[in-house]
């Protein structure tokens, strides 16, 4: 973390304050996460910086996509920052996480740099997946993507949790999916196995109210996603409040680590962009709705207001962070647009792991390409 030079001395600010967060609805739980939470100045600044970085990064991606420098699929996360940041605040980097395709935010919180993420979006050799994966297929240590097929990541997440349990390292797996995927059969199969085997998995349904263009009311017979695990305890969380998410995750993590088995969190959140860059996002919802969420529930604004009104930071200090973030994004975008594309020699590599080099057929029989592990 960088230190921010400000006109006022460090001692002028409140070191920590207590905040009230919305009470979480519970399902099959005797207790609930705390509603009075403590946040330190340091934590606040860190959450602010991280969320702002994610926000700016996604907006830059929007720009680059419109300039056709990013191609294919691009599902943006702006509006949902509190979810990724809140979750990461209550788990360790040694825990595991897997999500679907709206994954740039998580790639960042899990340890990817903005530079690597952006260069992956532009398909360059400096990308986090060397340019071979693209928007939906970013990975880093203990982060299993980035998955393109709706819902397919959920059984995988339970598998990771099974490995955690098997290896006895007190790690857990956070397994995310959306309100759209929540109606899929494989989700319920996973709930069943996770509960039967008491796997240390936190299922997280990021309910942003729309599965592509279908509102939750038109998609689900029951929109109480936190109850859909039936025999799995559940929490319904205000996903726009980073502290609420953090507290709920803390609660959930403790539940898992104590060997009680899986738990389900529904994070009620919102995405400002459409489903992907090819969706304007206004044919199935109104601009007024989007505007209302932006003005009343924006996660970054909420945190900023809290910090300012409790004298935990100054306007100038936060502006400085904004400036630094903007610079970081600009530098990353610069890198992402100038870094060369991957070399053709890379084309066939990484088919198999730990395998002797093999020949790969090119587009015709005279094209013999090489693949190394």
């Amino acid at each position: 973390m960088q230190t921010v030079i400000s006109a006022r001395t460090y001692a002028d600010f409140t070191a920590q304050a207590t905040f009230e967060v919305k009470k979480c609805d519970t399902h099959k739980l005797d207790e609930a996460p705390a509603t009075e939470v403590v946040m330190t100045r340091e934590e606040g600044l860190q959450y602010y910086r991280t969320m702002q970085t994610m926000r700016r990064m996604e907006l830059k991606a929007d720009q680059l996509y419109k300039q056709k420098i990013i191609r294919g699929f691009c599902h943006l996360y702006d509006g949902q920052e509190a979810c990724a940041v809140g979750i990461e605040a209550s788990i360790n980097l040694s825990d595991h996480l897997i999500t679907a395709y709206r994954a740039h935010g998580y790639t960042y919180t899990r340890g990817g740099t903005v530079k690597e993420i952006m260069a992956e979006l532009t398909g360059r050799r400096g990308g986090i997946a060397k340019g071979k994966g693209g928007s939906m297929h970013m990975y880093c240590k203990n982060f299993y993507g980035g998955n393109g097929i709706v819902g397919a990541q959920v059984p995988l997440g339970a598998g990771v949790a099974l490995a955690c349990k098997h290896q006895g390292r007190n790690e857990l797996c956070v397994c995310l999916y959306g309100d759209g995927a929540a109606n899929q059969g494989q989700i319920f199969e996973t709930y069943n196995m996770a509960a039967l085997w008491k796997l240390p998995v936190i299922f997280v349904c990021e309910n942003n109210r729309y599965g592509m263009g279908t509102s939750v009311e038109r998609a689900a017979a029951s929109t109480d996603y936190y109850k859909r695990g039936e025999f799995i305890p559940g929490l319904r969380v205000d996903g726009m409040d980073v502290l609420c998410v953090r507290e709920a995750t803390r609660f959930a993590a403790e539940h898992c680590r104590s060997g009680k088995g899986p738990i389900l969190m529904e994070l009620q959140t919102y995405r400002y962009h459409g489903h992907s860059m090819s969706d304007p996002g206004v044919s199935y919802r109104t601009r007024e709705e989007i505007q209302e969420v932006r003005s009343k529930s924006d996660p970054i604004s909420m945190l900023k207001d809290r910090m300012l009104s409790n004298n935990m930071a100054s306007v100038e200090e936060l502006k400085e962070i904004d400036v630094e973030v903007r610079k970081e994004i600009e530098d990353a975008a610069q890198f992402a647009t100038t870094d060369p594309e991957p070399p053709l020699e890379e084309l066939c590599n990484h088919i198999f792991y730990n395998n002797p080099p093999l020949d790969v057929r090119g587009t015709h029989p005279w094209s013999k390409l090489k693949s190394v592990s």
Partner: protein
Amino acid sequence: MDEELERDERVFLMVEEVAQYDGALQVSRGLWKKYGDKRISTLPFLRVRILIMWRSGGSGGGLLLFKTGPSLPLFQAGLRPICEFMTFNFSMQAIDQVINSAAKTYYMSAGLQPVPIVFRGPNGASAGVAAQHSQCFAAWYAHCPGLKVVSPWNSEDAKGLLKSAIREDNPVVFLENELMYGVPFEMSEESQSKDFTIPIGKAKVERPGSHVTVVSHSRLVGHCLDAAAVLAKEGIECEVINLRTIRPMDVESIEASVMKTNHLVTVEGGWPQFGVGAEICARIMEGPAFNYLDAPVTRVTGVDIPMPYAKILEDHSVPQIKDIIFSIKKTLNV
């Protein structure tokens, strides 16, 4: 689809995101507004497996294919569903039902339960959609008895073959191509009629030639024609065949052509192993045309790797026109 919905009220369309999103790729745009909820069922974006519920009712039973995802609840009352997959990549989550419930049922029931269903959607590589969204499923589906597999190239193909597929009393896998949706083609007077159909199982010679037979399907037919135009300037006349149907394959047309040209090159976007080209090679070897070959058959295919994202890598993962030209010349030994 509009014409077929109008013609037969048993036809029924199930599409993801059709109502307010107008269908992800706009193919079903306007249909919901015209026909309403009874005929056009919009499914939430789910793509889950197919659940099958077998119900026997009245006159011999109905089969309810209920796939939450591109879903197909059907013909209890003799309905004829059209099930749209947002792309065929997602059909993998539902493939059990396509094969085990759709393809095999008429056989398993010894003729009692036909399955007049169409599975349609974009197939194969697009642009920058990476490994999980770029696979070609022609070989996978064409492998299975009980299915018909169709792969149109141009607008006439798309219209005529889709109408035939909808009128077909058996399961048809209709492999469209996203990159072709926006490509305009001239359409003949005849093809603009509401009853214009193209028979399933017949290939078309798009360009006659005498030196080499080039067989392809879907988008790459266009590439083959481009390659043929370039080669014509060098005095090489290619006969380009548009398969139109992968299963049942019109091997006779290919054989007739090979017996004339003595050379064969197959071109496809999918992976080489166990693919469309591989099948063509096997069938040619088993038939009369083998003795007319002056050189082994050459297959031009996608590179045998998952599809990479970066543009330079993606461009080199699919057959380019220059690859087709190169392969034809090598086959002709020029």
